[in-house]
């Protein structure tokens, strides 16, 4: 293999790092829960393991991807945030999922800002979207809080209707 790298990022409270085997139970619990209904779930353990592996594989295929968001002190996994861009997505997306243990603490917001800054400043991306299930009011609110605006609907063959939210351009106030 030619090799690839998953560089860690840190914020005030969080570390965004490569997913690893020891994250599986926390990830699978989230993916099996009703909370996963907005991301095509719930999923069984085999599906969740394949997806955890695919999170890593996207870094090889695209050169960017999603991190496991963990508590900076304890390293407890709290969610998955980063730049999601599978083959059937219209554009690279700032994506966020927070596990039950991490909800309500502004973790997705803190991590998504770091991921967006990384995408603009380090990767040199010039535009970013977030794809949100319109029924997912928490995520809709976060998209707004990040300064994103509704742009259009997107129909996915498996996941149904998602709203595309457009983030502020690099350098624009948000």
């Amino acid at each position, binding site marked *: *293999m030619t090799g*690839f790298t998953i*560089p860690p990022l840190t914020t005030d409270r969080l570390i965004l790092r*490569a*997913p*690893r085997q020891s994250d599986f139970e926390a990830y699978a619990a989230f993916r099996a829960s009703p909370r996963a209904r907005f991301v095509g779930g719930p999923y069984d353990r*085999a599906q969740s393991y394949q997806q955890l592996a695919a999170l*890593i594989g996207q870094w090889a295929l695209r050169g960017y991807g999603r991190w496991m968001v963990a508590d900076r002190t304890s390293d407890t996994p709290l969610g998955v945030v980063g730049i999601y861009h599978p083959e059937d997505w219209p554009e690279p997306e700032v994506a966020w999922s927070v596990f039950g243990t991490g909800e309500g603490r502004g973790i997705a917001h803190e991590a998504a800002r770091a991921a967006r800054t990384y995408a603009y400043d380090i990767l040199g991306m010039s535009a970013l979207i977030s794809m949100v299930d319109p029924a997912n009011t928490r995520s809709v609110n976060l998209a707004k809080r990040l300064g994103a605006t509704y742009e259009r609907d997107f129909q996915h063959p498996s996941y149904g209707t998602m709203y595309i939210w457009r983030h502020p351009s690099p350098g624009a106030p948000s």
Partner: protein
Amino acid sequence: MTVTLSQTPVLETERLMLRAIDPQDLEPAIAFLSSDRAGYVGGGANKDQGHCWRIVASLIGHWVLRGTGPFTLMEKSSGKPLGSVGPFYPQGRPERELSWTIWSPEAEGSGFAFEAVMAIREHVYHDLGWETAVSYIDPSNTRSIALARRLGGVLDPDAPREDANDLVFRHPKPGDV
């Protein structure tokens, strides 16, 4: 703590170079996975490109999570990728598996999978310290059953399996190969 993956092993046989699955395999792997020849491994002509893309991504990630994973068979004479063989051990699988797929009908029937599995089995026993290996095979997959037998595999009716319908072939142990 930067995660990198670059020191994956390269194995060589008479006709093949075997290396970790890699982004340059994306197109031929998706072509295989989105055909009915991939029905035994989660693909099929009814599967969309995004589904197949996610499978390839997960196979690359398997190398990071498990420290090993599927090797792509590169034909030395042509430089073409012919298929994928190797360790497959997702969470929930009762035992570590040696799996195989040949990506095009043209590459079937020439013993490439046999040649690759023999080399990779030696690798997992000798270099990775596996003490046993199985292959889970659908009972209607006659080609794979024939290959498992040719590799010295014997049916293990008592071995646990995720899909009760699967056959489990147990490979010869390291000293018996």
